[in-house]
Every structure is written in C-alpha cells, then in structure tokens.
C-alpha cells in the first residue's frame, strides 16, 4: 500500500513572530515539521511495519527551505519525499489541489495522512479538501486507528475526552491528533541514513492547478497585543479565596 503523509514546514512555536510587509512574517527563524504531522508520520511508519511491501511517501508544499522538513520526515521513517515548490503562499483550496495532483502523479494512495491542523495557519481543513477532491472518506483529530483489510476504524476525538468511532472504507484520509501515538524521534543514524533517501521536486506551476473563484487571502497580520496589568492578591489563604470570589462575582460576573 502507498501511504502518503502530507507535511508542512512551520515556524517553531517557541520563536517570536515579526510581521513584515503588512501580511507576511520575517522567515529568518527556526522552522520545523508541524508537530501534528509527526504523529501522522509515526503512524504511517507503524502501519507499514504491519503491511509488508508498503511505502511511506511524505509530500510537502512550501518554499525551497521546506526540504528540511521533508528530511525530518524521512529521518522519522518515511521512504521518500515529494516537494512541491511554491514561493507564494497558497490558501487551503490551492494547497489541497496541489497535494492531490502531486500524489496522483506519483502513485495510487491507499491511505493519506495529514496533521489535524498546522500550527501556523491553524486552518483545520486540508484533510477534508483532499478527501473531497479524491472522493475519499475523511476523519480528523484521529487518536486511534485500526486498519482491517479494506477498512479503517478510527476514534475521532471530541473535547472532554469523548470520541466518536467511525468506520471508513479505504482509501481514506486521516487527520492525526496528538493522542494517536508517541512520535519516534530519529537517532543520529536515522538522520544520516535519511540523507540517502530521494526527494522529488515539482514546481507548483507544473501541476497546472485549475484556478478557483473561491479563495482566502491574508491581507493583514498584526501582533496580538497583551494588555494585561497584573495585580497581586495577598493575604492568608482565606483572605485570598474571598478576594478571588469577589473578583469572579463583581468583575468577571461569572458567579
């Protein structure tokens, strides 16, 4: 089975974001493999172990630098990579079309993974768009996955610890959630070996993506200002508790 994992090259969540040219960010910062995609890769590699003869292919749409993220995916166990190079930002409609075209050109997906969202754009929709384009069933925030012959049984987590269990025919699209597994971080040898694995490069324009009338463009980014002015609550524990109750009642008006 060919298992495709769509990965994204995103800014490290610990770095500061500086806005440039009104709607872009200064990209001279650390980028890495989107954290949810690590769960996707880990799961794909695990499935491959149980289904001999399978192949795990990491696909990434991004700028030339995104090659580093594909290398991380290869170090985590993907067999090869496909980089779709686009120097312009793509919205999720274009992204899904490009990923679909690249996968279709490359082979025949038996299973497709994405992370449940990217930590930069936080769009939460690429897996559904890929599914709609292929006409494959989709589940997101998947925290448990069992592949049984031609079906996938998944737990798709809601909040509060509850999950829905869905049965999907294969091929299907899985948005990996954090509870799915514990990512296997690569050893030094994995990293060295990954350098020998192939990465195919495709230029976005060569995919001849049909333009859509529908789209979403970021026209402005602004920093989210913190306007909090911390005030200390002091006293013994009884006094503090009384003061908190007063704040909840009079200021926040939640009780």
């Amino acid at each position: 089975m060919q298992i495709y994992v769509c990965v994204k090259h995103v800014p490290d969540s610990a770095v500061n974001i500086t806005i440039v040219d009104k709607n872009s960010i200064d990209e001279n910062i650390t980028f890495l493999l989107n954290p949810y995609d690590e769960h996707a890769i880990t799961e794909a590699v695990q499935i491959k172990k149980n289904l001999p003869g399978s192949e795990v292919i990491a696909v990434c749409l991004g700028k030339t630098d995104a090659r580093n993220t594909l290398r991380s995916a290869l170090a985590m166990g993907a067999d090869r990579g496909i980089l779709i190079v686009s120097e312009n930002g793509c919205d999720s409609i274009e992204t899904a079309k490009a990923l679909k075209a690249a996968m279709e050109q490359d082979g025949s997906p038996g299973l497709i993974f994405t992370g449940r969202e990217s930590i930069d754009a936080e769009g939460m929709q690429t897996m559904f768009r890929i599914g709609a384009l292929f006409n494959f069933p989709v589940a997101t925030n998947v925290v448990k996955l069992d592949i049984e012959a031609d079906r996938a049984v998944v737990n798709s987590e809601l909040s509060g610890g509850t999950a829905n269990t869905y049965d999907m025919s294969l091929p299907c699209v899985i948005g990996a959630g954090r509870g799915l597994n514990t990512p296997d971080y690569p050893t030094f040898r994995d990293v060295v070996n990954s350098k020998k694995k192939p990465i195919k490069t495709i230029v976005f324009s060569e995919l001849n993506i049909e333009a859509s009338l529908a789209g979403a463009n970021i026209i402005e980014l602004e920093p989210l200002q913190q306007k909090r002015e911390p005030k200390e609550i002091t006293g013994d524990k009884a006094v503090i508790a009384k003061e908190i109750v007063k704040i909840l009642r009079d200021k926040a008006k939640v009780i």
Partner: protein
Amino acid sequence: MMKNIGIIIELDNGKIKETNFGMITLARADKSQLFAFVMDADTRDLKQELESFGITQLVNISLPPDQQNNPVIRAKAIINAIKAFNISIVFGLSTAMGKDLLPRIAALIEAPLVMDCFHVDLEQNLVKTSQYSGKTIATIKLAGDVLVLGVRPNAVEPIKAQDPGQILELKLDGTHLVSKGFSVIRTGEADKSTTIDLVEADVIIAGGRGMKNSENFTLLSTCAEKLNAAAVGASRVAVDSGWVPYAMQVGQTGEKVSPRVYIACGISGSIQHFAGMKTAGMVIAINTDENAAIMSNCDYYVKADVLEIIPELTKLL
C-alpha cells in the same frame, strides 16, 4: 442586494447552547436575512429565542433515521439548505462538533472557510482570526459564491435584535442522504452531559506542574462543579506526566480556548501554553514561583500553593 445568511445552531439536549447567541449577533448585518439551521429538532421551544435575536427563518432539516450524529450526512444536509435557500454566507461554531462539520461543508462545495473567527465584516467579506499560535491576528479576505465561517465560542457578547421580525418555520427533507464509505459505529455523546466542553466553557480551571499528581486534579474538578459551567483543563506537563488525558490539554498542541475567566493553577505559562488561552477574558494565576511567566501575563496573581488556595476557594463557592 439582499444577502441570505445561514447559521448552524448547535443544540444540547434539544436546547440552544448559549454560545449560539453570540454567533447570531456576529452574523447580523444590514440588508440580510438570517436563516437558522437545525436538524431533527423539536422547534417549539426554539422559535421565540431565535426570533428575539433576529432570525427570520428557522429551517428544520430531517435526517435519515439514526444518522443525527453522522457528520457527513449533517454536512450534506446543510449543503442542501445552502442551495435551497440561496445562502451566501454560512456561520457555525468552532466547537468540537463544528470542527468536524464546517470543513466537510466547505470542502464539498469548494468554498473558502476560516475557523475560529472573532470578527467579521460582511460588506467586504473580511474576517479576523488568530494565527501563529495566537501570536498574530490575521485579517482574511474571502472570495466565492458561498463563504463558510467558524465562530470562536464566547468571542462575541450576545445582543438581542432591536427590531426582530416574525420567525417563519420551514422544513427541508434530508431523509434520502447517504454517506458512502463512512459510517458511525459509536458516538461519545452519551458522556457529554458530565463533561463540559473546554472550548465552550465560560470558566476554565487549569492545572500544571504545581498540581503534583493525578489525585490533586480532583480538587480542581470539585471546585469547577461549584462554578457555573466551569471546565477543567491542563498544561502539557500535566498531560505528559500522565496525570490527565490529552483531551484536557490547553495550548499549542491542545485546545485553544477563550473563556471569560481562566484560572491557571501551578502553570508556569510557556509560550505554547499561552497559544491556547491568550484570548481569555480574565486570567487569574496561582503559583508559588513569582517569576513564572504567567505571573507577569495575567490580570490577577496569587503567590501561594494552589493546593491550599483551591480547597479554600471551593468552600466559599
């Protein structure tokens, strides 16, 4: 031209969840009429409330038997309503249910979608949402015949309509809908009455390293029970230590929440944690370490052991 706006109403045990009213308030615009979409609902008790917020059409869509929890069927039912009533903008909540429904709708009709919106300008089709782990606010321009918008729960204060029109009830048959290759085996709905959705909670009490172990989290849940609609959350440290399940995690790789009050108990306040709760109305931090990042990034702070303060607080509630 008159715009038809569709609003997907989330019900809880047949009642309208409070957070819908903020969404309707956000969706109200000049030269538009508001359609509320519900599925297999008993509409008798819904009409009056929806009417007071400015809804003029209530569309009740009937689904195939036992398919109320199938997100594919629900998405198709909404798409039928979009077509039947010539809807140009669809609003839904960015709740757990919304995250599994709105992207399905947008994907199937190739419409643009922005989740977690907290501001909209329907004249210019502009929406605001946060990006980069809550570090930036993005203004996004949308284009398309139909736009789909996920509204961040609690982001908008509900205001009743000044001059509401009379509500008209309409029915739409969706009993023929199918979801090929996709079926629901089990739903977690049954447990939902006992757990309050983190994303929708008015108040969140969250615990971190300072909680020390799993048992101490019951102090937080006991306290939460005494507060109206409070939920218990956790930092990544508490989750990774195995004290509480992943589903309770607030932050970068957990839930992003906007409660009216966020009480951070023994949480240091890493950038990744802030990513999930930065937009809270009020933050109260309790921590023994006065140098913890959260202490300089909150509205009120208490330098004390959370294990002593919380039981004291519970007594008073």
